[in-house]
């Protein structure tokens, strides 16, 4: 596989002095970070420490109380379309519609983000959903919903992946193949920012950069 040399000096995403306040509680204060191509970043911390808030701020879904997020040196609010074209955000909610079949869901998700939908059956096969492509999503389990949403990762050209608890409700085998996917993505010059409470198995500790959120007050 062709690996991109890590030549880009400007980080893909950088955050400057982020402050986040939720329910009158300070979650984090003056948090600055730089994420470059090839990074796998794991955000750690106990429940309620602001992991999801941080990811939502980085993806531009939430506004920080203070501070800025830059994409390749530009404010993300000033290059919305370009940033979103290069971003894949996967949140707590899978965004899967119960009224549509697995394949329709994936096709819509791919097309919405400007990807081709020709191979969607093959991507469903990648996440072990062969035979379920014509089932309405409302008849499928929680784990299968997550899988439908995660199938998009296999096709994505976006370099920035922001994944909030991607392993929730996914079985061991699924977790292993996702981890392999993250490693390949980082090798290809992308970056992965994820939160998880599980230990990463196939990704070696030295490959992972950790951000620990530890609110205490």
């Amino acid at each position, binding site marked *: 596989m062709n690996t991109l040399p890590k030549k880009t000096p400007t980080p893909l995403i950088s955050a400057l002095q982020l402050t986040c306040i939720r329910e009158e509680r300070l979650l984090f204060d003056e948090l600055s970070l730089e994420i470059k191509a090839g990074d796998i970043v794991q955000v750690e911390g106990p429940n309620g420490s602001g992991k999801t808030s941080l990811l939502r701020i980085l*993806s531009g879904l939430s506004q920080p109380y203070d501070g800025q997020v830059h994409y390749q040196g530009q404010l993300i609010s000033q290059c919305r379309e370009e940033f979103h*074209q290069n971003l894949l*955000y996967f949140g707590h909610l*899978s965004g899967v519609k119960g*009224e*549509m079949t697995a394949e329709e869901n994936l096709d819509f998700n791919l097309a*919405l983000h400007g990807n081709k939908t020709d191979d969607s059956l093959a*991507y469903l096969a990648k996440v072990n959903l062969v035979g379920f492509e014509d089932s309405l999503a409302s008849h499928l389990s929680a784990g299968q919903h997550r899988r439908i949403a995660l199938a998009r990762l296999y096709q994505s050209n976006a*370099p920035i992946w922001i994944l909030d608890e991607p392993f929730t409700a996914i079985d061991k085998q699924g977790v292993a193949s996702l981890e392999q996917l993250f490693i390949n993505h980082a090798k290809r010059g992308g970056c992965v920012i994820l939160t998880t409470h599980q230990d990463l198995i196939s990704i070696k500790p030295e490959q992972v950069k950790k951000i620990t959120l530890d609110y205490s007050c």
Partner: protein
Amino acid sequence: MTLKAQSIQVPENLSTQTDNQKQSAQQLSYRHAFMLVLKRDLTIAMRHKDDIINPLLFFVIVITLFPLGIGPEAQTLSRIAPGIIWVAALLATLLSLDRLFKSDHHDGSLEQMLLSPHPIFLLVLAKIFAHWLITGLPLILIAPLLAVLLHLDENSYGALVFTLLLGTPVLSLLGAVGVALTVGIKKGGVLLSLLVLPLYIPVLIFATSAIDTAALGLPYSGQLAIIAALFFGSLSLAPFAVGAALKVSTN
């Protein structure tokens, strides 16, 4: 199965460079994005028929109750018919508004839409158009039938259909702003009516006035022009307001 899996071509490398963007920009045509969301919302509505049937049934029941309550005198009924039809249409639309963004908000697909590279107003416009096709259009089709029940004046049928054609999209557009503002709130139903109903008043006044004028055999193009102005005004401004409101609601 394995054959399919092998046929995947993993993109060789990722680049944020411009040729990549040019390629995908071709796929991001506005019409394509609009049709994509419209098709999805219509598919969901066809499989979840409550969305179509409930407002329509409400509309039919409310209108049929009036002759029963007031009595069958043709003169009284035809005097109040425009008001009844329009108030019922207004409430039926209000009843259906909740579905516009709420389920998308609950299952996270709204987030994904906000994060898509397409302009938000375009996706919002597609959703509102789908909402109108699902709720507004059936009302327009069935209203002339119900007008017979209310002894609507013969001259007024044209005005009734024209005002509904121009007016119901306004209801969907303005209503969408209210839903977008209240989508993040758990019990936003009452707040939604308080926000949206006052905005519906101009449509109600001019629509019923147009139908009344038509019954007298006078030209009603003035009222129709004002409703058209309301339509074009809300068509051009509401999608942007909805986009901004959705951003605030998901914050």
